[in-house]
């Protein structure tokens, strides 16, 4: 069995990559993918901790992840709908060009 630390590091790495992609890519959809990857990294973290916890029969980690997946799905749907709406308005998915809220 891989020790916990392996999973944790993997999760952290995935999180970092997802964050890097979300912060650096110009396309809004890639940013959304990055965000999904970040969420997934967090889910992995939860499962890892559940598996190595003292009372796994409480299923706390599993519950959390199930709900997290549900929320992530909802969020992805809404996010993509937003991107489509923005694309309709700005005719582009380039985030550098979508700065109407510039102060």
């Amino acid at each position: 069995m891989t020790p916990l630390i392996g999973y944790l590091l993997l999760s952290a790495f995935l999180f970092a990559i997802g964050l890097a992609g979300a912060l650096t890519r110009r396309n809004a959809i890639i940013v959304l993918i990055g965000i999904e990857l970040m969420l997934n990294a967090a889910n992995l973290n939860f499962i890892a901790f559940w598996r190595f916890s003292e009372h796994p029969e409480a299923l706390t980690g599993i519950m959390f992840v199930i709900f997290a997946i549900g929320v992530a799905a909802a969020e992805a749907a809404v996010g993509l709908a937003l991107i489509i709406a923005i694309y309709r308005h700005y005719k582009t998915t380039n985030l550098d060009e979508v700065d109407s809220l510039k102060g």
Partner: protein
Amino acid sequence: MDWIVKNLWLIPVLPMLAAGLSALAPQRCRKFSATLAIGSMVVSFLLSLCAFAHALHSVGHEGTKEVFNFTWLHFASGDAGVLKLGWVLDPLTAVMLVMVTFVGTLIFIYSTGYMAHDENFTRFFTFLSLFAGAMLGVVIANSLLLLFICWELVGLTSYLLIGFWYHKPSAAAAAKKAFITTRIGDVLFLIGIVWLYHASGTLLFYDNGQGCMEQSALVKMVAQTTGAGMAISTAIGLLIFAGAVGKSGQVPLHVWLPDAMEGPTPVSALIHAATMVAAGVFLVARVYPLMNTSLAWLSALAEPHPILPVGSPALTVITWVGAITAVFAASIAIAQNDIKRILAYSTVSQLGYMMMGLGVGGVAVGMFHLITHAFFKALLFLGAGSVIHGCHEEQDICRMGGLRKLMPITFATYAVGMLALCGVPLFFSGFWSKDEILHAAHGWNVSQVPFYLGAFGALLTAFYMTRQVARVFFRSCHPDLGRTTTSEQRTVEHGGEPASKHPHHELPPGVHESPASMTIPLVILAVCAGLLGFIGTPAWPWFQKFLEGEQVGALNFANFSEHGVVPLMIASSIIVFIGIGLGWYFFGRKGAPPPDGVDPVEKLRPDIYVLLRNKYFIDELYEATVIRFNGWFAMVCDFLDDIVWGGVVALVTCTTIGLSWVNTSIDNFVINLGFDQVCTGLRRDGSWLSLFQNGKVQRYLGVIGAALVVLVLLLIWGLKG
């Protein structure tokens, strides 16, 4: 209280009401305004007769002075803060009321004829009624304040009536002169009133023992002395006398009376002969108890005698002023040529006699002469008016003559008046009244000089009146009389109306007798001038006793043999006849020089004549001193007002403007600037901060990531620590 005493106020108020209604009426309602005026005067005369009857009835009984006082205003709490006014009915009031209303009514009737062609008929009667009301107010007043109010009203109406033909510059100037000269006296009068109020606490004459003419107040005032050692009562008395000096034309302030002849002749008759100028004499008679006090008397007697003089400093001054005035004015009258001006100076002289009479002989003596003078002087003035009217506004006696045959009624009545004025014995009132004065002056223990002055004055009076009558009525009529007066002179003297407006001159242009509305009052006055003397003869001194509040005894010729009465009568008669004789010699006899030539007096002593003709140059003296000083003082005041006070105001203004400028500057530069700077700073900082918001989502996400790092580190270190 009797009905008439309570309603005494009606007597002055009715003419005033008539004046008010007449003022509202348009100019064309001449009959209306004349009827109102004459009607109100007649009603006042009837009421005066009621008052006189009442006073007659109560003579010798308890109430010789009946008063009706009322509170006018409260200006402070307590008894001292109340100002009361009132009217009094005593013998003095009663005789004055009857005289004023009677003479007034006759003059009003005369005016309807005299002013018949004047445009401003209604205005004339308005002013006349107002004057009558005010004069009657002076007579009945029980309060010195009420008297002063009516006094000023009388002065005002005198001004309005002297300047009745106001477009004539000489009339306007004369009105102004009259008002200002009497004002000088009135200022001193007012100071006297204030001082009297301060010293005695009340301005009512009679108020159940608390009035200022009554025992307690007089004692208080005599006891106090001023810084110069004069008793306060004397000082106040002299101040009040100053008011009388102005109004009655005594020597320093006499200059307005001759000029007041610019007014219409009825005005001269009523105001400047019979009534207004007599108001000064009446005032002295009214405040006689005050004048009559002195320290010596105070220690000697217990009660102040209200009528007879006991010798006091104030009365001495009054006597001297009166005596000097009498001779002064009589001497000027010798050299005057205007018919009314001679009568004016005669009035001044006779007023001097009245004052002298008050000073040496008491209220009764002075008032007797006042009453008789009112009648015969009014008669003389109305007669002069008749002459002027008949000669088509000619007023120079040197251009008249022989009117005896052309205006017989006027001549007859005028002669009666002239003889009364001169004091021709027995049947003419002036003789009796003037003799009373001379008798009292002869018995004056201070000095005999006023007596000699009075006698000399009687001589002069006879002389100048004879001169006037001779020049006007005797000798031959100048052929051009009534015709050669140029139309310009005529329009000027008759108030600006061209001669064509005289419809009643159907007779050929020449001298003619006056209409009945003018001659009937003359006749009535002549009768009075003749008969009135008999109410005050020594044999039957009803007038004197009436004023003293005593019953008069029966006709008693034995009084004639009292000390010095008959010799004095004979002496004064001789003086009068000498005067008439001299006048006749110089002016009236067949061989006398004609009027066109040099005046005989002038030929005799030209230097004195010049002095007399120019009225002792008093007017010029005043012009050079008082008027000039006044002008200079006005300039000083103007300078003060313009430069000094104006400068102060300007300074304050500049200061205020400066302060407001500072305020504005502070507001603009400090406050606004500060505020603006704050706002600018905020905006700058805000815009600087807003640079952070570049609208890009990824930056926000990056910030969240960085914040996560920071938080984690903080947590770790927090836990570690």
